């Protein structure tokens, strides 16, 4: 075991740090022109698409460099490296891996420049966790696929210019994931309508998307017909340790500790209460476990081994921690816990109440905890499918 970086990695970290010292002001000073300047400098530095090959405009970074950069950025609560959230997270990697040269030319530079948003059309009213059973139809008609059906929970659909869409091009095929095809669809296509859905916090980040005979040119197919499923399975040598999430959770725990410092329980500082101390220590321990789990995964990735289902370990930790940190934030407030933002009496402007209602994407969006447990039980422990 050795937790030291190589001289090159150390030099890289130093480079990242001094770059951030120069270009990343404290959080209170990040208004005005800062977001534009930030977008420009990180793009020039090739940190956007850092893991992508250099010939498509990415950074060509090693897994270790990706991990170092992510950790440094999240420790300083840096803003995202681009605003094209899904484009950078998985649409870009999927196009790089499965797309034609023409598709790469058409889409990759725009994603790197965060010119517009992408959205993801996977879930449907009748299929979520069992995604391979999806029903939205794509029927070949000459140079087009004609798409008819519905998607739901599509985040950013209202703002997106393009959608990465999964449709069924072959009905009755067994196994069922073999009849699925991936299409790249302009959101202004005739016959496509978006109907926003309000989430429990009152926001409308996701939507229903209806397809009524939407014609998608065949050249917008990503990968081969019937091979759409593979595209969802992840791509490129992306660093997948989950270490970046650790810094975010640590910041939340720091904030929780500060809350415990100023709140009182039965007239005594909450931080002196043995139960409070134990809860905080447990959170700290589980966040640390995530970090060391991540370093073990990273070691395996660096050695060239693939890391797949194991990442569900940290996903489960992260999902539970997000919920529990917020819940504890409310508990520490006593009766004030019932107040949401909007009055002077609310603690921290209702921050913890907002957090306690804001975990949908982490906990449900990326596969529910039950599904993560199935992944571990079936793919790692070899237990039968249910």
């Amino acid at each position: 075991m050795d937790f030291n970086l190589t001289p090159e990695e150390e030099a890289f970290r130093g480079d990242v740090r001094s770059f951030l010292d120069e270009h990343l002001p404290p959080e209170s000073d990040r208004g005005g022109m800062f977001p534009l300047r930030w977008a420009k400098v990180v793009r020039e530095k090739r940190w956007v698409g850092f893991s992508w090959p250099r010939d498509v405009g990415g950074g060509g970074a090693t897994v270790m460099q990706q991990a170092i950069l992510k950790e440094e950025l999240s420790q300083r609560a840096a803003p995202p490296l681009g605003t094209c959230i899904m484009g950078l997270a998985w649409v870009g990697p999927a196009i790089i891996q499965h797309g034609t040269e023409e598709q790469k030319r058409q889409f990759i530079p725009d994603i790197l420049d965060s010119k517009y948003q992408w959205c993801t059309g996977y879930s449907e009213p009748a299929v979520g966790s069992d995604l391979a059973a999806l029903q939205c139809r794509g029927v070949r008609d000459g140079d087009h696929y004609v798409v008819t059906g519905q998607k739901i929970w599509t985040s950013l659909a209202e703002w997106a210019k393009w959608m990465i869409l999964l449709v069924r091009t072959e009905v009755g095929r067994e196994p069922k994931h073999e009849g699925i095809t991936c299409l790249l669809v302009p959101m202004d296509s005739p016959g496509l309508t978006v109907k926003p859905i309000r989430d429990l916090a009152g926001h409308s980040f996701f939507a229903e998307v209806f397809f009524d005979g939407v014609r998608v040119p065949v050249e917008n197919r990503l990968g081969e017909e019937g091979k759409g499923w593979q595209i969802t399975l992840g791509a490129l040598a992306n660093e997948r340790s989950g270490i970046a999430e650790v810094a975010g959770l640590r910041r939340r725990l720091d904030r929780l500790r500060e809350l415990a410092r100023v709140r009182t329980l039965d007239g005594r500082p909450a931080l002196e209460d043995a139960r409070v101390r134990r809860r905080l220590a447990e959170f700290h321990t589980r966040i640390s476990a995530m970090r060391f789990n991540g370093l073990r995964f990273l070691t395996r990735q660096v050695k060239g081994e693939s890391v797949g289902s194991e990442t569900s370990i940290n996903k489960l930790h992260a999902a539970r921690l997000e919920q529990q940190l917020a819940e504890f934030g409310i508990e520490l407030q006593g009766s004030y816990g019932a107040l949401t933002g909007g009055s002077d009496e609310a603690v921290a402007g209702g921050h913890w109440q907002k957090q306690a209602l804001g975990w949908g994407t982490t906990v449900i969006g990326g596969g529910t905890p039950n599904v993560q447990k199935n992944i571990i039980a079936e793919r790692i422990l070899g237990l039968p499918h249910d």
Partner: protein
Amino acid sequence: MNFGFTQEQQILRSEVRKYLEERCPMEDARRIMESAEGYCPERWKEIAELGWLGLLVPESYGGAGLGWVDLVVLLEETGRALFPSPLLGTVLATLAIVENGSPEQQQRYLPRIAEGTDLFSVAWLERADVLDPEVQATRAVREGDDLVLDGEKLFVTDAVSASHFIVSCRESEGPEGIALAVVPADAAGVTVTNLPSIDASKRLGKVSLAGVRVPADATLQGASGRPAGAAALGRLFDHAAAAITAEMVGAAEGAHAMVVEYAKARRQFGSLIGRFQGVKHPLAEMYVDIESFKSLLYYAAWCLDEAPDEAAEHVSMAKAYASDAFTRIGIDAVELHGAIGYTWEYDAQLYLKRSKWAKAMFGSADHHYERVAELGVV
């Protein structure tokens, strides 16, 4: 960065595992647990020859001169096999002597420990059960060239089989006044009693000291000639907590593997029980927990050798997480088997008992979480 084991460590693991599978499968472990001695002298000799007992002993004193991460490999495997032996005392005494003994003391004790001739154990906890190393009711009074010890030590691992005890005692005021004295088990005034332990593979005992006379140079003194002090005892406590956590990793994996296997074989309601989520999800959760306290422990072990300032916090995280998680795993390992798991003959119960022993020894989850709060949070 490499948070994994070296090739040599992987070889060590497979050799240890192979030996234990061949020479101490569960039937043998059970027989040894039920024996009067609680360990098997023949196997003790064998593992001495294999170099396990001298693993941490410097090469100049006849050992392999390896470190904590190597020790983790060994202890994970002895934990998995529930190998009944006084190995823990050997490990802790070695660490105490290597860290605190003068060259002369190291020469006197370490080669015999590595050979397996002397069986050491550490005697520190007392009736009051206070884990603060400064709180020692056992007294050492200097009389001429001798030290006279009076007191009573409880929860002493493998006390009955030990040939020597490292006894913590108060010699003078203040944190520097805590001494670690090497006391032969057959010295006049030493009485050793077995205290039935919840885990028969982990013997515990009481050591009473009534006017026990040892030469003054039997207290561990560093090269500087200063007494070991409370800090050394505190560090020994971290070694102990980490060592049993390493065994907990192996034991928890052993228990988990038993249930996973059973879930793939036992059928009810026309289906393998491993298909029911009431079975498979707890198994997935156990896996998440084991991997997580394993990661914490590995880092703690590395700290004990390479980053001593960080060690206490990380040992406590590992021991606390493991104590809670292994408790649950021990119970589930029995419950998920149904009635067969509740029988004497079935091995699940052995892991359950180990989990209960390990959660109580060297600091409960509450104790360690409070230390984490102190050192890492507040």
